């Protein structure tokens, strides 16, 4: 296994820049997840690492060697695609051994590698079938098997679970996590599903418009985002953003009856009168308590273990409130809630975090 270094990596199509200077260090054996909205450049960046897209500028190092101009097959990577990309005219066995066959590996060695991978993935009974005779989950396992037999330095996964149904997606997620533990390889995984990112990653890289917004461990990004975009992107349901004005007493929430909350602990408070945005995770809210304010429930989502209530005060912003004692909540109910102001996050008008 190898680590990767991306130094000022750029990609342009004509005058249009899609990756605008990405610097990133990925440790050997790490599970790194690229997340971001559609069109943010995460798949393009992955394809550049794979050697499927030309790198317009910067340096890509895998295991300390510059790989910009190295052929995709010689970069020591293997890739699992969203659509599986299994060769439809070949059997599972032939698909898995395909790369080794073209690399000139002896047949006995190919059989051994393929059988070992099939055993790890439980594909033994499917080896002589063609992809069209397999379910989505089985196809994805074959695609992973095809990657494993190459013993790559780095595994690349491009939204591998997007075509699976919800149940299978959870199962495959667990299987990928298990594989990472067993193989110990470096994995770069692209997804737009932040639950996948949070559950699988050692390190999350949040991308927007071809630049890295923030990188760090899942909980660091969740608890301590650098900006409003990252705060809003990670977390389901997403963080509430409430407009506020800085006053001498703290923060005045205009949309909640002008209620004033104490200023969260930040090193340099903005000047009185400054407009800011307060970020509140849905799970911060507690029913009742001191300094509570009233909200009217508009929509209730019961998930069994917990309830999400979408509520607002008058014509103010809609808040998403997560509660584990919300089974009795109904649309139209008026409830009182409070939150710990010390855990609120403050963002300036540019969306940058005030710490």
């Amino acid at each position, binding site marked *: 296994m190898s680590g990767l270094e991306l130094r000022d990596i750029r990609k342009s199509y004509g005058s249009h820049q899609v990756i605008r200077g990405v610097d990133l260090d990925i440790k050997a054996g790490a599970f790194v997840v690229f997340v971001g909205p559609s069109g943010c450049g995460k798949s393009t960046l992955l*394809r550049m690492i*794979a*050697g*499927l897209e030309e790198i317009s500028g910067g340096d890509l190092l895998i295991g300390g060697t510059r790989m910009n101009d190295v*052929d*995709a*097959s*010689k970069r020591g*990577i*293997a*890739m699992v*695609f*969203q*659509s599986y*990309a299994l*060769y*439809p*005219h070949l059997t599972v066995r032939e698909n898995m051994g*395909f*790369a080794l066959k*073209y*690399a000139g590996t002896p047949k006995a060695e190919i059989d051994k590698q393929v059988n070992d991978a099939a055993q790890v993935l439980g594909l033994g009974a499917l080896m002589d079938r063609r992809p*069209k005779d397999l379910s989505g989950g089985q196809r994805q396992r074959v695609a992973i098997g095809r990657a494993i037999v190459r013993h790559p330095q780095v595994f690349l996964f491009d939204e591998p679970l997007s075509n699976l149904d919800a149940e299978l997606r959870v199962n495959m997620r667990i299987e990928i996590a298990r594989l990472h533990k067993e193989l110990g390889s470096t994995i770069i995984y692209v997804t737009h599903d932040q639950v996948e990112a949070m559950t699988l990653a050692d390190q999350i890289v949040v991308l927007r418009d071809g630049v890295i917004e923030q990188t760090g461990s899942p909980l660091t990004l969740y608890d301590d985002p650098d900006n409003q975009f990252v705060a809003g992107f990670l977390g389901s349901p997403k963080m509430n953003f409430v407009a506020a004005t800085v006053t001498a007493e703290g923060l005045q929430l205009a949309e909640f009856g002008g209620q004033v909350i104490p200023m969260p602990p930040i090193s340099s408070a903005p000047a009185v009168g400054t407009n800011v945005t307060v970020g509140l995770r849905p799970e911060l809210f507690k029913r009742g308590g001191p300094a509570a304010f009233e909200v009217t429930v508009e929509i209730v989502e019961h998930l069994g273990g917990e309830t999400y209530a979408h509520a607002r005060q008058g014509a103010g912003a809609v808040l998403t409130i997560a509660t584990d004692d919300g089974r009795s909540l109904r649309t139209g109910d008026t409830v009182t809630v409070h939150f710990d102001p010390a855990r609120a996050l403050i963002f300036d008008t540019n969306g940058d975090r005030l710490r």
Partner: protein
Amino acid sequence: MIRLRSLITYGLLCIAAFVSVFPFFWMLIGTTNTSADIIRGKITFGGELATNIANFVAQVDVARVLFNSAYLAIATSVLTLLVSSLAGYGFEMFRSKFRERIFAGLLLMLSVPFAALMIPLFVMMARAGLINTYAAIMLPGIASIFIIFYFRQSTKAFPHELRDAAKIDGLKEWQIFLHIYLPVMRSTYAAATIIVFMANWNNYLWPLIVLQTNEMKTITLVISSLASAYYPDFGVVMVGTVLATLPTLIVFFLLQRLFVQGMLGSVK
């Protein structure tokens, strides 16, 4: 009401089936009758099959004519499929600033009738010293715009991720074409084979112009010359027609299943 509609539908289908099948039936009947019977419109089997075949064999160097037709049809079809599918693959797989403009230009050329190209083509072939050669028949048809168009449209359904996966597996572009694209697109090839083989086997006008000796003539040219004789023997003409029809029927029935798939789209 529904019954009346069914009656009309089946009635129309019967007429269409009759119109389609009757020429074949008449052709077969013709091989067993004399020329005079055929002209009279006799539509029952006669006893002249052996005579007609003997006359046909006596008048025509069957082996040579069939070899010419088969050689030209097979070689041209193989080359057309190879060149046109490569072009279709290239047009779809490789991004280029001028790709769509060049393709639109090619499609525009479809509207030029062959009659307008015949004389320039003949002059080109004459200057190249290719008149009365197989090459003169094969070369103009190899880059078929319609087949390029057909392959490009079919290639739109070819998953680009297969090409990416093959690149990562270490295949060069020509290996991807040969080992991945070609087998995956086999029903498109089958459909194109039928279209191209039939067109080449039945090719009449261009061979008539550039083939000048009897040793080079194809079956369509021979049938034409038999039919345009001063006293044509239509029994013999019908034997020739059956012989000319059989290969195209065989190719069609062999590839029928893939042909239908190819028309619906190769990649599922």
